């Protein structure tokens, strides 16, 4: 990346947070957390990684993070108003998502889980695609190949094996593309995710596993999910594992950029464990008050990736006007989106027969006719 106004970090000395703080440099399990910008927006020096983003790039990343959070809030509101079947809030995870995807080329494939609204927006997709899914209009909607953005995967972890297979195809093609496989801490318990990690290592697939460790699998904290952290487990599969402050845009970007460079060079997969927090509920059907404390939530609200990035941008000279303009843009985008969501209509059930099998089936055609006749009969009454 050619940086015209690359940021030179100021050195501010060692971290002084309490020892149970996962960003204190040396958490309880001894794995280092890469951090380049701390929660107070102070630069941190790291022996291996350094910030790679220009001010303009950070501004663009912040814009996507900010807009996606505004739409995330709109998603929760729409669900509460009965307009969506479900909403899975991503508030708090924007830097992990945008830091990672902005370290890729637009031609690199992404396999999301189901919380990556900001990545969808980063790729220039109309965010209404996510709302169509959550409104029960379609199961998936956007043009995967054109935007190199896979469809949301609701069976936890299933997408990781497909990401590895896609990467194996890249290797067979002799291309230098890479694949980003998104998953959460909960998914790392699934058998198929462990198969994906092993296959990726065995075939040296050009895959970056981005584990967004948001501390909970719905209600179950990571301490009850596993004894070995995802970053630590990577070594056992034969790939590097890096833990990064997932609310630090610079750190996530730098770590993923390095992993992508290794993958492009034929050096195989990397697991990146991005330490973050789902500030909202798992989904709108969830009740976090049953399993976590307000104090814990407040601690993480204090590490908000948007606040941190905004402070840095202001220190670099981004003006009030720019932020005010962005807020106004966000309101416009949200208002427009809300109107379009409310106007969404599903396809008729008989149209869906088109998508069951590629080759015509007489049996399906017959059933389709029966269903069409039945619906026509109802409408005729």
């Amino acid at each position, binding site marked *: 990346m050619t940086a015209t106004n690359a940021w030179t970090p100021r050195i501010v000395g060692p971290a002084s947070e309490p020892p149970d703080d996962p960003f204190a440099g040396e958490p309880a399990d001894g794995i280092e957390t890469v951090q380049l910008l701390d929660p107070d927006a102070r630069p941190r020096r790291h022996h291996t990684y350094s910030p790679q983003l220009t001010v303009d790039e950070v501004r663009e990343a912040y814009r996507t993070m900010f807009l996606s959070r505004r739409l995330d809030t709109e998603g929760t509101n729409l669900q509460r108003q009965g307009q969506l079947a479900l909403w899975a809030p991503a508030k708090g995870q924007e830097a992990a998502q945008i830091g990672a995807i902005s370290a890729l080329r637009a031609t690199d494939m992404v396999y999301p889980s189901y919380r990556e609204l900001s990545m969808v927006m980063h790729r220039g997709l109309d965010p209404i695609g996510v709302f169509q899914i959550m409104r029960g209009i379609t199961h998936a909607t956007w043009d995967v190949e054109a935007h190199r953005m896979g469809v949301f995967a609701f069976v936890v972890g299933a997408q990781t094996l497909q990401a590895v297979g896609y990467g194996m195809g890249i290797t067979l093609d002799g291309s230098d593309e890479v694949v980003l496989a998104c998953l959460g801490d909960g998914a790392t318990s699934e058998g198929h995710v462990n198969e994906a990690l092993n296959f990726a290592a065995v075939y040296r697939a050009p895959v970056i596993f981005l584990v967004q460790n948001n501390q909970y699998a719905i209600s179950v904290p990571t301490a009850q999910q596993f004894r070995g952290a995802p970053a630590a487990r990577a070594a056992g599969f034969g790939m590097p594992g890096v833990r990064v402050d997932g609310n630090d845009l610079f750190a996530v970007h730098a770590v993923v950029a390095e992993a992508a460079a290794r993958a492009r060079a034929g050096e195989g997969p990397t697991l990146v464990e991005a330490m973050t927090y789902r500030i909202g509920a798992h989904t709108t059907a969830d009740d976090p008050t049953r399993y976590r404390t307000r104090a814990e939530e407040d601690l993480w609200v204090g590490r908000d990736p948007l606040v941190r990035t905004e402070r840095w941008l202001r220190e670099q000279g981004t003006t009030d006007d720019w932020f005010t303009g962005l807020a106004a843009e966000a309101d416009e985008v949200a208002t427009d989106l809300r109107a379009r969501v409310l106007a969404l209509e599903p396809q008729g059930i008989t149209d869906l027969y088109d998508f*069951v099998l590629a080759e015509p089936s007489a049996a399906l055609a017959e059933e389709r006719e029966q269903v069409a006749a039945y619906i026509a009969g109802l409408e005729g009454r």
Partner: protein
Amino acid sequence: MVQLTMAKAITAGLTRAMDGNEHVVTIGQDIGRLGGVFRITDGLQERFGARRVMDSPLAEAGIVGTALGMAQRGYVPVCEIQFDGFVFPAFDQIVNQVSRLRFRTQGRITAPIVIRLPYGGNVGSIEHHGESPEAYFTPTPGLRIVTPSTPVDAYELIQQAVASPDPVIVLEPKRLYHSLKGEVDLDAPASGELDRARVVRLGTEITLMGYGPMMSTLLSAAKVLADEGHSAEVVDLRSIAPIDWVTVEASARKTGRVVVAHEAPRTSGVGAELAARIQERCFFALEAPVLRVTGLDMPYPPSRVETDYVPSVDRVLQAVDRALAY
């Protein structure tokens, strides 16, 4: 007698089963502090402790596979799978391991585990949350598969499932969890047979047959038919593996006309088995072919059109009209 929702009835039945046998344990995702995504295990961890009410890692094969191991150690695990569409990572454990342990060991080792699986649609959710996967399991010898349609039935079935020496999948109609209330006698013994169908409405002209979430639809259809001067008998299978053929055949012979309903796709579904068996055994008593009203032969659709997929009262009545016209 108390008025309970189906959800609360299952909670009560599970509590009673755990009270009665200290070897009964529960394992599943989010069943502890959260009380499960449907709150069925609400309060159980407080009452029985985290040793007996285990929050598991997010891994369905892990839940069922370790339950089978605990069963071999003398425990009676009750597993919760979070949603119908998420059961498949556990498929090998269920169809190759749980179902065959007794057969493989010539009866020396049984697998008295219970797998609770919320199922069924018309709940307005996203993909994998409204499905009816029973036909992937019903052809598997060695499994018992039951599904309640009322709170009292749910209260009994969960206790009978825990008491059974066989592995039992309890398909719980999630649409009814919080919407259906009914009288439950919490002190009544749950001593009935696990695989007994029930005639829930007597009739003479036609039999409407189904299970789980379809029963309220079939009973509504029977009421409409009564208003129109037709007498429909309604049979709740309760157990779809094995099926209570005595009750099924008796009703088919009595009315001579049968309509079967389920939410799962038509092809190779439970309805296919019922239709085949009824024509094999009751051919000369039949006045009409056995007709099926089912989900469609497509993946479960987006929820905005799911009411066109799940059998409705109207679709049942359409089939009844056809059967009565023979």
